[in-house]
């Protein structure tokens, strides 16, 4: 069960090798989390992540989960929920893709879209139903500022996150009053492996900062969390810029 500060005792991470997710898991283990399920494609990296979290004192299990295989989600995630209550699901899988390459290769672009959006719709709905029958729990969805307004530089990724973001908001409304809390997290540029080759954007942040913001959002039962918080204002302004101006911005 969550405590008065919204901190979970059990955590299911979808996208078990995500740096942001693991930073969040580490932070939550330092608080109340004792049981962690890391779901992802079986790999040495997944096992290594599990080992690291075990070293912090948590009881960690790994689960073979593939975002690109929605037909398996019900069975795979159902097994996790059958083992006991999950107080928080962190939906953190996602592909950044390579915009230039993906524009030339629609198949690769579709893979980004299917992972970030279709996979999340499927896994999100499976988890939402399970949380609802528990009568409690948080579903924390890793969206991105890139979903707030599509940019020339990464509109394939951005559009998939836009879809995910809209889906998660709607799901949050559908679950309002059921005891289940849906929180959309919109980080800006986060310094991780995924962004290692990219030029750093303004207001860049770290996985640890995202983890801190998630903990704060859980306590406040927030519906939307921006990391860093200043992005809320920046994006509110950018969202309303005329297209012609927006297009010319060096972002």
């Amino acid at each position, binding site marked *: *069960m969550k405590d*008065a*500060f919204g901190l979970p*005792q059990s955590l299911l991470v979808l996208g078990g090798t995500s740096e942001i997710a693991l930073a969040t898991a580490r932070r939550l283990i330092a608080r109340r989390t004792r049981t962690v399920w890391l779901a992802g494609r079986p790999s040495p990296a997944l096992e290594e992540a599990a080992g690291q979290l075990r070293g912090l004192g948590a009881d960690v299990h790994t689960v073979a989960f593939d975002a690109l295989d929605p037909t398996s989600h019900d069975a795979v995630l159902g097994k996790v929920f059958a083992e006991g209550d999950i107080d928080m699901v962190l939906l953190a899988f996602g592909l950044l893709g390579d915009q230039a390459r993906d524009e030339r290769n629609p198949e690769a672009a579709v893979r980004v879209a299917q992972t970030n959006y279709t996979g999340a719709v499927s896994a999100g709905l499976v988890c939402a139903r399970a949380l609802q029958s528990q*009568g409690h729990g948080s579903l924390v969805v890793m969206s991105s500022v890139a979903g707030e307004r599509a940019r020339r530089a990464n509109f394939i990724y951005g559009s998939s996150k836009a879809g995910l973001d809209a889906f998660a908001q709607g799901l949050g409304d*559908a*679950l309002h009053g*059921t005891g289940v809390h849906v929180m959309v997290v919109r980080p800006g540029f986060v310094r991780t492996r995924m962004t290692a080759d990219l030029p750093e954007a303004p207001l860049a942040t770290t996985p640890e900062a995202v983890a801190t913001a998630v903990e704060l959002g859980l306590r406040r039962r927030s519906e939307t969390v921006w990391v860093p918080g200043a992005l809320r204002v920046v994006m509110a302004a950018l969202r309303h810029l005329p297209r012609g101006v927006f297009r010319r911005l060096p972002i």
Partner: protein
Amino acid sequence: MSADTDSVPDVTGLDHTTVTGWGRTAPTAARLIRPRTYEEAAAAVRDCGARGGIPRGLGRAYGDAAQNAGGSVLDMTGLDRVHAIDADGGTVLCDAGVSLHRLMEVLLPLGWFVPVTPGTRYVTVGGAIGADIHGKNHHVSGSFSRHVLAFELLTADGEIRTVIPGTPLFDATAGGMGLTGVILTVTIRLQPVETSLMSVDTERAANLDDLMARLAATDHRYRYSVAWIDLLARGASTGRAVLTRGDHAPLDALPARMRRDPLSFRTSRLPAAPCLLPEGLLTRTTVGLFNELWYHKAPRARAGQLQRISAFFHPLDGVPHWNRVYGRGGFVQYQFVVGYGQEDALRRIVRRISERRCPSFLAVLKRFGESDPGWLSFPVPGWTLALDIPAGLPGLGAFLDELDEEVATAGGRVYLAKDARLRPELLAAMYPRLDEFRELRAELDPHGVFTSDLSRRLGL
């Protein structure tokens, strides 16, 4: 039923309601059932489903003791008959859903008072046993269960058992947070009174040591005793306090005009706190100002002041939904006890709270007397401090974890009826009879019919 439940149509089509405790933190959804007869209660227990059920009274437990996510919550306030009063012998037989408020209404005109009352009259008799509540008279009268002669308990197997003091089932149920079964009826021994007024002595203490010295030296002279502490005071005035102590006023203490109707029970209620209060109403500044005023408003010393029962015992009941002043983030109440001889631990904790500047306007210190046999009953002989803190205070969770460590190291414990955040690992150290409780539950309720968010969170 407390207004801290919020019915919402549910996409599964089941009639689920989100439920919180009085602190309004950690809402979860459950099927709310309100039995009106013992048969309906038995049926509700039988049909509560895979995630079990938990009885709930008036929702005054601060934490998650009367919530059951995804399962059933049995609102017992529909079972509210007072069956029999023995006005000569001083006992009452009533349903578990009867509130202490209702008992006062019917008993005071007959010259009887409830044996123990907490800071609110709006608790049910069943809840009073489940939390084994204590009051300002604990150092004299012990906790509520000491005055219970018998109760009927609906257990997980559908049986109704008569439970009397001195049996394991009694000791597991008194303080057992509703997890042994549903209490249906209770027989309580009452306290005789000549009037419905209290004779109250008030004095101020300049700091914590002064306060503890006064309490230790003179508490035995008063049936009721409590000290309000200003936890925002620092330096030399750390722990400054106002003591209010007294007893039921005898008839001859009343002025002539009041002797005509000495047993009338009058209460007054202000308008309820509104639903939408801004976050952050209770800051260090506003609470600091309140505390300053409250301390200086109290007389340095005054003896024999006549006060109504409601003013002496239940001042906050005058403001319905006062818990809303903490805004939508809610609040946590932290109540712990450390035994006599552990005064240094108490001093350290009070100093830490003061230094941290927790905005708490409700902080209460009192002395407990002998404990009662309930396995998970909270009171042990010693000092108990209770304080309310807004849940949104940054870093509060980690800070309270540190206080828990101090409390546990000193052999003390926190009160489960108020808890919403204890680290489960500390529970066994705080409640040494936890294993017996678990064993009895495993035998009596092998399928975990009686389950609550509290029991899931702490592994009770």
